[in-house]
């Protein structure tokens, strides 16, 4: 019975439900820089997978980069990390070394 191919139970969405967020547009982590007043800047990190606790990431980042930071809830983009200052290089290095994401998944924006 089971050696007839058509009668095997096969879930076509099996691999769509898992592991999809690792590639494609979804898995990309956007790192942006925004200008604030004067020379001050703000770094936002959007798109870190839900598997990770953002608060803990922020806590580690704050300590490592010696800056302040928060987690902002956004209805479309989910939880977004905000860090004070231009932390683009720092955060991308942090993400790759800790293995949160691969280098290809990071996308740097801003000037």
């Amino acid at each position, binding site marked *: 019975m089971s050696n007839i191919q058509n009668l095997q139970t096969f879930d076509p969405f099996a691999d769509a439900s898992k592991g999809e967020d690792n590639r494609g547009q979804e898995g990309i982590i956007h790192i942006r820089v*925004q*200008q604030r007043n004067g020379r001050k800047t*703000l770094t*936002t990190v*959007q798109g870190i997978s839900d598997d990770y606790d953002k608060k803990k990431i922020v806590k580690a980042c704050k300590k490592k980069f010696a800056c302040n930071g928060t987690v*902002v809830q956004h209805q479309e983009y989910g939880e977004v990390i905000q860090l004070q200052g231009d932390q683009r290089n720092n955060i991308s290095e942090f993400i790759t070394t800790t293995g949160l994401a691969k280098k290809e998944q990071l996308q740097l*924006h*801003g*000037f």
Partner: protein
Amino acid sequence: MAEDEAIFDPTMKKKKKKKKTPFEFEATQEGGDAAAPEPVQNLEDGDVGKPAVEEKKEEETSVKADLDTDDLDLDNFSKMKKKKKKKARFDMDSLAETLPDGDAPNEESTQDANDGSSAPPPSDDVDLDLEGDAELFTKNMKKKKKKKRVTIEDSLENGQVENQKDEDVDAQIKAGIPWAGTERDYTYEELLTRVFDIMKAKNPDMVGDKKRFVMKPPQVVRVGTKKSSFVNFSDICRMLHRQPEHLLAFLLAELGTSGSIDGQNMLIIKGRFQQKQIENVLRRYIKEYVTCHTCRSSETILHKENRLFFLQCESCQSRCSVASIKSGFQAVTSKRAQMRAKAN
């Protein structure tokens, strides 16, 4: 100036000898013209294994050439001759390979065969002129070549520049070819580079990275304390053959600010931005929306289909979709009290 030029050149893979005319967008056309003087320059600069005395002589002669118009003419003429010879050598390549121990001394033949490969490409016009000659050479190559060499050497006794250049070329080639005097087999990499060199020399159009894509740098001026003005915004749009709206949307999304085009087609961006920063963003724009993702040519058309932007390459006819412009998450950077006051 020169540094900027080097910086703002998105397809800068090879550090080629740059001409001083900066920021020419039509680099493809200019490249053709530039190819003609380049070889000589290269040769003059690239003296590897040359005695110091000769160097001096060359310097002297080159100075002479600069001073005397007559000498200059001679120089030009002999350049043509040299090119002819090079062209002939291209055709000899195959023969030199198949008959490694020909009549000519082995060393010389290998050198000659490889001459064409590493020599910079002559300009197209010259190529066309020389096509006939080159075919002639293929018939009884070796003898003719030798003769040619002798005649050239004779004719340039007073000039001497060409001679030295010739030796120079040979020396250069010897340096570039690892298997020059040895019996060993060629490695794959060596042959591959050689093939590419030959391709580059013979038809430069085929090798993609030959075409440089040089951009004018953006002119960014501070307007007041909080705004920046991108002065040649419309010029750059025209150069890139892109709609100003598209570039505007990209710039504003990337910079995370707001801005608008004013009366003189300048782009006013909120926030302090320097030329370098705008350059970075522009470079990303060019990489994503201007250069073809397959062949890296800049002759592309961007058009919209079903809400998606497609990049159609004019030179390789490839077609691919490009990322849509998204500003993504924007943090609140203005004062919250002000925002509240505005909302009410």
